[in-house]
């Protein structure tokens, strides 16, 4: 097993190298660079947008170096942890990212938890009670969850939250608490604001998971070992959970690996609509403004996590399903 992991890890290096090349090209593809992108913000900041200022900024951030040099400096820095300096936000990239990581992780974990806690029981219930009224109702509800575009759902929930629950629009704290010290009231206020993104992100994931869980479980319920267990006199609830669900859940356990990048990337669209300071909008702005250091480094982090995630999910699958053996 360890030999398998080692050569998978070695295999990652060429993949990541190719990804870094593609990422660099993708970001530098459109014309213009981070400085031209800053012009709009400078104007709004009330600073004068003059040709002289632009050339000064370009020189300052070595943006006028040839492309290969910029690529090598960027990838060189990435390899030993120095993510470089964001031209657009004028701050070191790792400070920018780490500031927002804790919130992104909190929201992502909350929504993933919500997804698992909802999807698995509902999936099981609708599989066991197949073709019952509850099954149809849950299927339609799950489909509705998948069908509503996330930005629409977050907008409506934000409005409902404000109108009926008095939750202030956007952001994580109501104005009174933005700068207050951490207190129980502030935590309460945070929780009040957190349930909207959690539901929006959760609903999307839950719907998909319910249908996969239902399909897997239906396949397993037909298998003979279920009948054997019934013949042994195992109580129904214990039987369902110990045997078919145990097998039906395997594919989900392997998706844990895929969650690694998702936890960090956070949903861009929902965060923009709800104005949450997660890493999603940070990546969106960086891409819109072609801020190579920030966008490039962040994408590399996500890609690295994805590749590791695939390995983790394979290992998890092998761990929970003895039939799979990796030499």
């Amino acid at each position, binding site marked *: 097993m360890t030999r398998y992991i080692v050569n998978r890890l070695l295999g990652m290096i060429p993949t990541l190298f190719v990804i870094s090349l593609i990422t660099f090209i993708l970001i530098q593809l459109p014309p213009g660079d981070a400085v031209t992108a800053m012009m709009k913000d400078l104007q709004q900041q009330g600073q004068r947008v003059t040709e002289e200022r632009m050339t000064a900024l370009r020189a300052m951030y070595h943006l006028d170096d040839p492309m290969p040099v910029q690529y090598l400096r960027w990838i060189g820095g990435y390899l030993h942890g120095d993510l470089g300096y964001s031209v657009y936000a004028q701050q070191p990239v790792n400070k920018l990212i780490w500031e927002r990581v804790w919130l992104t992780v909190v929201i992502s974990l909350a929504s993933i938890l919500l997804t698992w806690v909802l999807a698995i029981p509902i999936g099981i219930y609708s599989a066991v009670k197949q073709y019952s009224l509850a099954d149809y109702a849950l299927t339609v509800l799950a489909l509705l969850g998948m069908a509503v575009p996330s930005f629409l759902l977050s907008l409506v929930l934000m409005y409902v939250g404000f109108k009926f629950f008095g939750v202030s629009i956007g952001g994580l704290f109501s104005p009174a608490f933005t700068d207050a010290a951490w207190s129980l009231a502030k935590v309460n206020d945070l929780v009040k604001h957190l349930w909207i993104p959690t539901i929006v992100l959760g609903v999307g994931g839950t719907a998909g998971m319910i249908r996969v869980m239902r399909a897997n479980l239906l396949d397993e319920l037909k298998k003979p*070992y279920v009948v054997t267990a019934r013949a*042994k*006199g195992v109580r129904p609830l214990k039987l369902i959970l110990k045997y078919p669900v145990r097998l039906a859940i395997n594919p989900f356990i392997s998706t844990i690996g895929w969650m690694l990048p998702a936890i960090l990337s956070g949903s861009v669209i929902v965060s923009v609509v709800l104005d949450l300071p997660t890493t999603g909008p940070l990546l969106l702005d960086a891409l819109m403004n072609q801020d190579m250091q920030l966008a490039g480094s962040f994408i590399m982090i996500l890609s690295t996590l994805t590749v590791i995630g695939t390995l983790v999910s394979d290992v998890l699958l092998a761990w929970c399903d003895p039939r799979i053996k990796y030499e």
Partner: protein
Amino acid sequence: MDSSVKENVLDVMDLHVCFHTDEGDIRAVDGVTFSMQRGRVTALVGESGCGKSATSYSILRLLQSPGEITGGRILFHPQGGGEIDITALGDNSEGLFRLRGGRISMIFQEPMTALSPVHTIGNQVCEAILLHQKVSKAEAREKAIEMLRKVGISSAETRIDQFPFEMSGGMRQRVVIAMALVCNPEILIADEPTTAVDVTIQAQIMGLIRTLQRDMGTSTLLITHDLGVVAQLADHVAVMYLGRIVERADVRSLMKTPRHPYTMGLLNSLPSLAMNKKRLPSIGGSVPGMMEIPPGCPFNPRCRYAQPGRCDVGHPPGPETIGEGHEVACLRAREIMAEKIT
């Protein structure tokens, strides 16, 4: 065996099982009545699709929608006396759970998929013990190992922690048998135990079942379509066709003097050493689908002795005793007997 204990361990009386499908209700078991003698092996024989499995599944109430028991009663007479009407037990009643695997247990046809692939052998066998006996885990493991050794699995202590996919089909069937018999049930239902394994393993499994049955005195209901297996294992036989029992007798008289044309046809199509390389005779036509049961005697379209106007009209013939413990459901049974003698 003291007199108060009834002669039969299990009585199936006029059992009806029906499958509800979009195309209509299929009567898989159309009024079956038979009983199992204590300590004996009773066989249910018939081609596939005759309802023998449905019958066996109903005994342990394992039928799930779309199948359902729509009539008849199943009476179980445990060793300690008393009588339990299995059909009356509630779906989720404690009585049914204690019965399954504790008093009556079952082994299945597909050894490959009868065991959960992701749980160890030990886990699954111990579970059977712990469900029905108040013992500690260690004792349960001890009993399991003992039972595995009994069913002929070598180095059981190490094998107990292996997974099913690490074992051969025959080995797995032995585990299933061990799991079924570990709680020393009174009845063992064996649903085509040897069909899915090759001939050499088949002989071993049959030998194993016979010895265990004798040693533990378990009355066994054997479901099979293989008359060879019946001849070797069974004491009493019931032949089924299209959901009905057409002939019931002890094995010797059934083999020697079959009375029902279908039974005769089955026996004739058995290859015997005496045969000198002629084409094997077979019964004409094929088993009609459950939905196209012909009127009158269900066997009449394929029966050599069928008399139009008699056999193919009215209700299917009921069982008629024509010998000691020998019943047959054929209007012309006696006439055929007479013709045969002459």
